[in-house]
Each structure stands twice: as C-alpha cells, then as structure tokens.
C-alpha cells in the first residue's frame, strides 16, 4: 500500500516539479523572444565587455548573466554573456557585492564619448545581493546562489533619460524614474514581496532608506529582480564612488555600429564588446538551448508517467493477489467456523458478505497503515521507483530559470489519500470475492468434519 501511495505521490511531485520547470522554461523562452524582439527593433547594437582577464566579477542579473537591457545601445557589461555560473564573487552568504573589486573607472566614459559616431554613453553600476539556497530536486539537494535583488544605478540626466530607452518601459504602479530623481528606487514587481513594500513606502537597502517611486514589470529575462536608482546613489550606497560596471553606448546610426564597436575595442582591448547582432545570435542560441531543455522535460514527464503506470499495474496486481491468498487461507483456516455459522442458520449470502466485509475492512486498515507509511517514506520510495528527471539535461536551464521557492516536495494530497483508500476498498473487494464465494459454498456437513 505504501508503494501504491508513494508512486502516485512521486508522480505528482515529479510532475509538479517538471511542470514547474516546463512552465519556467516556457516563460523563459517567451521572455527571451521578447528580448530578441526588443533587440531586433533597435537598429543599434550593444557592446559588452568581458573583463575576465583582469578579474572583473560578473554581475549576475537574475542568475541569467545577461547583459543589461541596453536597448538601443552598446552595452559594456563586465560579465560573461549568457553565463550564469561564473560569479562566485558576486554573491555569497548574503554579502553584498559591489560587482567585483575592479569596477571600471568612470574615466572610460570620457574615452568612449570622444569616439566618432557615438551619440550617447550611459554608464551604470550594478551590484547584487544574494543568499545561498538549498534546492531539493528529485530526491537530491544542491546549493545554489540566488540573487535576492540587483541594484542598477543609472545616470538620471534629462539628456539620457528623455532621449534613450535606458529605463524599463513596463511600469505597473507608481511612476518611472525621471531626470533629477534621487533617493528613490524603481522596484521590480518580483521584489515587492521580498521588501514587503509598495509605491510610496520606504525600504532599507544596506542601511540606507529609499522611497519606492514605482514598480516595473519584468520585460525580459534580465531585469526580473532589478532595482533601479540614481547612479550616484548606487555608487555611494555600495561604496563605489567613481566606479561603474557597465557602459551602454548608443551609436549615431545602425550603419556605424560595427565601426564604433571596433573603435572601442582598439581603444580598450580589455573590454569585450558585443554588438546587438552578436547579442541577438547569443539570445537565439539561448532560446534553442531552452527549447531543447523544454522538450527533454516534456519527454521525461511522459516517460515517468508510463513507468509509473506500469508500476501501479504491478502493485495493484500484487495487492489483489495478496488479498486473494490471505483470504483463501483465512477461509481454509476457518472452515469449521463457516460450517458452524451455516449449521446455526446463516445463509450463503450472510456468510459471503461477512467474509467480503472482513476482506474489505482488512484492506482498509492496510490502506490506512500504507498511507501512514507512505507519508513518511514516499520521497524515498518514489525516488527508488521512479527515474529521476535527468539533471544533466536541464540542470543549467533549471538554474537559470528557477525562481527561489520552486522546490519540489512530495505531498500526499487529500485527493491522493481518498484515491488510495478507494483503491484499498476496491482491491479488498476484488481479492475477497472468490474466497468469500468459496466460504459460502462450503457444505456444512463437510466443514464440521474439520477439527
């Protein structure tokens, strides 16, 4: 019975986690597509810089490691594009990271501004705050760093804010940041619960208070937990005065994007420069990656289900046979009792229903005991009985897309318990049918000869 309960419990847990994953992957694909479209609609391109060479830590935004939403510009990101893993320095143990120890000096800004074909340069500072989380999945647990939020400081000058799409566009509450704002933040809708704050509230960040001026919805994979504020606020808050972590460059026109990118690269070979087209290619690659993972997840669900169905059939057959044999044995053992009952006037029907009732009652008890065992042993049992959803296939995808809190756990729902009890009664009835019939057919004269 424990097995019978554990399997469906395991299935539903596995299914739930896989479906979660599928949903997440689906969302990610949609979001990636949105980002691709965003990038495509911009004629300009973005540049990204790697800095691996001299120890730039990566600012991992939402663990995806994407470059900032530098829509319509070049983005210098001191991070590896599309790599969500290489940032040990950025998060850890709740320590606040200021985006690595060697942020770019603001002077870069002036160098790049002077390049021909550059229309605007947007320096920004990102830093993330994260915590270690232990994630349970398919019977195993592993630790991963989950960023709670990412601070992004942007220069809030009217020449940039009014002319270039550097701020998030999807404002769900309050208002967007505007030129001259200070001591205010634009919070992600994904973080309102974390901070427990809404528009007009003040929140505490690293011991300083900021007013929430507005809430932005997540438009892409990148800014799901980003908290926007004035660059100078961010610099002083994170003790990074004079430093930035990325630069977004807007070219005069799409024709000169490559030229400008090359010029930046030759001026500062240490920067990795990514144009919009390159980003687009990378995003496409990401999308394909996610789609493959989604397919794998879906096929795993189907596979798990078919294995589970087979196991349930075996368990049901075994249970019925056990009931059958136990009841047959009981009937044999109690031939004399049956004979006595019939001799003192019990009808075949009464004798049969007595034994049926007994079989069903025993099965019901077994069912209750089984559910009790399963409620404790189901995770281990289903781990033994069901194939773990292959972690290798989408371990990375999972890491990239999972929100904190999407942990899979095996739960016995009331529905599942009812189904299990129903199965116990049904199997008890099935298994007792023949033995009870045999008992009712026992001829009392013969039964009496048994000692």
């Amino acid at each position, binding site marked *: 019975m424990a097995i019978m309960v554990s399997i469906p419990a395991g299935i539903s847990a596995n299914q739930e986690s896989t479906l979660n994953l599928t949903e997440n992957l689906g969302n990610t694909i949609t979001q990636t597509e949105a980002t691709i479209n965003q990038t495509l609609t911009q004629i300009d391109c973005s540049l990204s810089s790697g800095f691996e060479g001299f120890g730039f830590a990566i600012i991992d935004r939402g663990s995806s490691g994407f470059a900032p939403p530098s829509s319509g510009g070049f983005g210098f990101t001191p991070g590896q594009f599309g790599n969500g893993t290489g940032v040990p320095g950025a998060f850890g143990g709740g320590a606040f990271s200021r985006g690595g120890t060697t942020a770019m000096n603001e002077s870069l800004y002036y160098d790049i501004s002077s390049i021909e074909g550059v229309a605007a340069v947007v320096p920004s500072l990102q830093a993330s705050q994260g915590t270690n989380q232990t994630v349970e999945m398919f019977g195993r647990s592993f630790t991963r760093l989950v960023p709670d939020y990412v601070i992004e400081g942007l220069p809030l000058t009217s020449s940039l804010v009014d002319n270039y799409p550097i701020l998030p566009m999807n404002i769900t509450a309050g208002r967007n940041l505007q030129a001259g704002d200070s001591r205010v933040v634009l919070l992600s809708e994904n973080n309102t619960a974390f901070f427990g704050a809404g528009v007009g509230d003040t929140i505490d960040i690293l011991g300083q208070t900021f007013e929430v001026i507005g809430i932005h919805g997540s438009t892409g994979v990148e800014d799901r937990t980003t908290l926007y504020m004035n660059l100078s606020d961010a610099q002083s808050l994170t003790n990074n005065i004079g430093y930035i972590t990325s630069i977004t460059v807007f070219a005069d026109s799409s024709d000169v994007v490559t030229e400008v990118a090359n010029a930046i690269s030759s001026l500062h070979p240490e920067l990795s420069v990514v144009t919009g087209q390159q980003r687009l290619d990378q995003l496409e690659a990401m999308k394909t990656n996610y789609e493959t993972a989604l397919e794998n997840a879906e096929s795993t669900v189907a596979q798990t289900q078919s294995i589970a169905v087979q196991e349930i059939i075996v368990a049901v057959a075994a249970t019925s046979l056990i009931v059958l044999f136990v009841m047959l044995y009981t009937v044999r053992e109690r031939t*004399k*009792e049956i*004979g*006595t*009952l*019939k*001799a*003192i*006037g*019990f*009808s*075949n029907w*009464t004798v049969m229903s007595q034994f049926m009732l007994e079989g069903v009652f025993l099965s019901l008890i077994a069912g209750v005991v089984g559910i009790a065992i399963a409620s404790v042993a189901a995770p281990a049992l289903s781990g033994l009985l069901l194939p773990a959803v292959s972690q290798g296939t989408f371990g990375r995808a999972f890491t990239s897309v999972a929100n904190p809190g999407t942990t899979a756990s095996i739960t016995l729902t009331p529905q599942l318990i009812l189904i299990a009890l129903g199965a116990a009664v049904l199997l008890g009835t099935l298994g007792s049918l023949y033995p009870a019939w045999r008992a009712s057919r026992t*001829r*009392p*004269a013969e039964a*009496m000869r048994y*000692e």
Partner: protein
Amino acid sequence: MSEAVLKLENLSKSYSLGKRNVQALSNLNLQVNKGEFVAIMGPSGSGKTTLLNVLGCLDKPTGGKVLLDEVDVTKLPEKALYKIRSSKIGFVFQTFNLLPYLNARENVELPMEGTKKSKSERRRRASELLGMVGLSGREEHRPQRLSAGEQQRVAIARALANDPALILADEPTGNLDAKNKYEIVRLLANLNINQGTTIIMVTHDSHMASQTERLVFLSDGKITKEKQGLHLAKKKLTCPYCGSRTQLGDARCPSCKKRL
C-alpha cells in the same frame, strides 16, 4: 396423543468414496415425538453422523423423506433450509464450535441474527439462556476463558436461542471429563423434563445413552435395535464417580457423597 416432531420415511443416503459407492443410510424409518430424549448409538461408520447431518438439513438424502414438523425438508430449496436450521433446529457439537472472538453472550445471540428480535431482546434472551445453563455472570467471557464444560453449556444455550423444535447433539460429551459429562447430561435432561425440549443425541458412550429414555441402535445404516432408557423416565441419572443412582435434582451423590 404425542405429536411427531420428526418422521423419517425410507430414508437413504449414499455417496461415492472414490470408485466405491457407500450406502451410509438405507431405508431408515423413525419417528420422534415432541418431548422425547432419544439417543442414537452405534459403532464408527454406522451412519450416525450422516443421519444427524441429514436431520439437521446440512446434507441431502438420496432417497426417502424427512418430515420436520410435518414439512418434507428434502424437497425444500437451500434458501428455505437455512431458515429451518435457524428456527427449528438447534445444534450442539462435540467440539462446541463457539466463535473464539465472541464472548459467551454474543455467541448465544448469533443464531438470533437475522430474526425479527431487536438488539435488546436478543441480549435479554441470551442472558436468560446463559442463566438457565448456569452461567450467569459469565456473559462477557470469551470461550478460551471458559472450561470445556462451560463452553458446551454456552453451546447448548446457543442451540436454544430460537426455541427450536429439535435439539441435535453430536457427541455432546465426547470431549468432556466424567464430572462435566454428568453436568451436560443433567442439563439436557432438565431441559427435556422441565421445558419439554425434544433432543436427539448421537453418542457411542453407552453410559451416556443409558441416561436417556429411548435408545436407537444403528448399524450399517440401518436401525437394528430400539430400547427404553433405564433412568430418565424416573428422573434418575447415574453418578459418574460410583455408578449408583442419583436423582436429577441431587447436589451430591447419595452413596459416595461427591459433589455432582
């Protein structure tokens, strides 16, 4: 004029044992009147148990009639038979056959299940019967806490539950010691004399049989001899210790002074 509770007419029963055809009962004729205490005696294999099974509607004869209260039960379907078993016949077995997981009172109530009696009526009747067989205060005891003699008394109370026309007792004292044998016989005799219960008892204990008022000898499926019992008509029994006569109501044997 005595009224026939049971009448056997040309009763035959044969069954095949492997290839052999065994004639267990052949052309048996017997009449038992209301209020009689009949002992059926005979060696092993004489057909005693087969006869009792046929009388108890547990087995069907191959020929002849069994008239129980003037109804030929051999013609009745199985469905009617269990009603007859429950209402007209009370069984007492050699091995008592009490249900071990029920207490004395519940065992006595068992035959009343399926009758019109209410739960409280059944309870009252069971307690009353247990009192009658001398087991007041033992109602809640399970069979394993009762002595063999007490168990058989519970079984007798159970047999009486539905006021049957006939008590069929199959070696009721076969598993009991002398003292308990005497008690059971005395109980059956009391029932017979005071309540007018008709009893047919199968036994191969001639001492037991001699306590009844009528003995029927069975051999090879035929009635070979019938004779009047020695004592019961005079309300007398035989002391199990010294063999002298005792009165039905005696608490001690008048000759050896042992407690009966």
